[in-house]
């Protein structure tokens, strides 16, 4: 075949496909919908393949794929949702620093993931990148195209929101006492 790009395709697949699971689970956790995660994942790999000539060999292919993932998700967010997501994040920012509840030990993985899904996406993104995918602040900053300070504050508040959601679940299950119970007005 004239100008066969098979060697280039093989190179791309060798570099990018090992990260498919990482990309998929992050997409699924951010979108909360496996069908949409499927679509986004395919888009990410197509975008990556089309711009593979811009990828510098030896640099972090995984971080590069995650950057494309977040770019694609933002595109889908604008398509599926609306800009209210940002406002929601800002509102929560004001209340996120208020409490520091204990983490319930009896909580299940399903509860954990459900609690994570309740964390607004801007914070959830950073928690997933740093705590799950173990990117450095600098890498997360580059992936999300935000300053490192924003990564730090979002991570801190994201973790705190997660702990709050888990504490709320634990109270519902009767694992933790309601801090308001027994208080007199």
């Amino acid at each position: 075949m004239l100008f066969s790009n098979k060697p280039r395709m093989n190179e791309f697949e060798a570099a990018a496909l090992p990260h498919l699971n990482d990309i998929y689970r992050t997409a699924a956790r951010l979108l909360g919908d496996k069908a949409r995660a499927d679509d986004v994942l395919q888009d990410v790999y197509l975008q990556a393949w089309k711009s593979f000539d811009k990828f510098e060999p030896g640099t972090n292919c995984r971080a590069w794929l995650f950057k494309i993932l977040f770019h694609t998700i933002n595109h889908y967010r604008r398509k599926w949702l609306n800009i209210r997501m940002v406002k929601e994040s800002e509102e929560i920012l004001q209340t996120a620093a208020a409490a520091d509840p204990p983490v319930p030990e009896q909580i299940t993985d399903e509860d954990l993931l459900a609690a994570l899904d309740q964390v607004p996406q801007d914070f959830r993104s950073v928690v997933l990148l740093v705590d799950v995918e173990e990117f450095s602040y600098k890498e997360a900053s580059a992936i999300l195209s935000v300053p490192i300070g924003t990564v730090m504050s979002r991570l801190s508040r994201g973790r705190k929101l997660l702990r709050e959601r888990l504490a709320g679940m634990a109270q519902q299950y009767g694992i933790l006492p309601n801090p308001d119970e027994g208080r007199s007005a």
Partner: protein
Amino acid sequence: MNRLQFGEGACEKTRRYMDAYLSNELLVETTHDVLRHLESCPACTAELEARTRLRSRLKAAVEAQTAPPHLHALVREKLRNNQPARWRFYAVAAVAMLIVTAVWLRPGPTPLPDIADRAAQATYIQKVSATVAQVFKPGLGDHIHCALFRIYPQAPPDIREMENKLGEEYKGLLPLVSPAVPEGYRLVMAHQCTYAGRHFIHLTLRKGTDVISLVITRKNPDESFRTLSPSADASGVPVYQASAANFQVAGFESEHYLAYIVSDLKSAANLEIATALAPTVHQLLS
């Protein structure tokens, strides 16, 4: 003592640094300060352990979710069905380059062989004549053989000499040709010649390097233009036309002769000359 590293409010400071500590993003000095505080603060140690456990559990829970097996194959298939723009661009550029190269290398008009190389001349005539109907070949061949592979004298022979060479039977052609050709052409040769075992009456007009020939030969049995479609009618004389390489051939016939106008003019101009000459030449040959 250790708790005093952060001074007053050490627990608050430690917990503020706890997120960066968990992420291993603290400076070495600050990490040491946090560790020193933790050594002597059970509450902060418990808090750190709880956050570390939560982080580990969260990571394990998220990582437990894997992509459906079909997705790997689907992605591979999509990748192979989608060529990146860069490769498409190169493919288009390559095709364009091939076309340009093909046009550039396309055989142009076959150059004339050396005037002394008879074998090459014969090959050249054969090659140029290959695409025309058989009836056109004698006139075209003699034009190339006799009018092109020739060094013309500085001064053409005078009219009397041409008349002598043509003979009584054909000298009447001389006054006919000049009025029929475009302005600037000059009669430079008129004679009887032989090519490929065939006898010809041949008149040649030149303008610079451009050459027009009137070539006449006796018909062989069953030799005629009439099997072809005429391109023009010159007062009842059908005129036929053919192209060969960069030559134009127009022909007509009388009862016993075939007559040709051969030139490197455009086909319409060549046909016009033949159409202008056909009635008078036809009459003369009859």
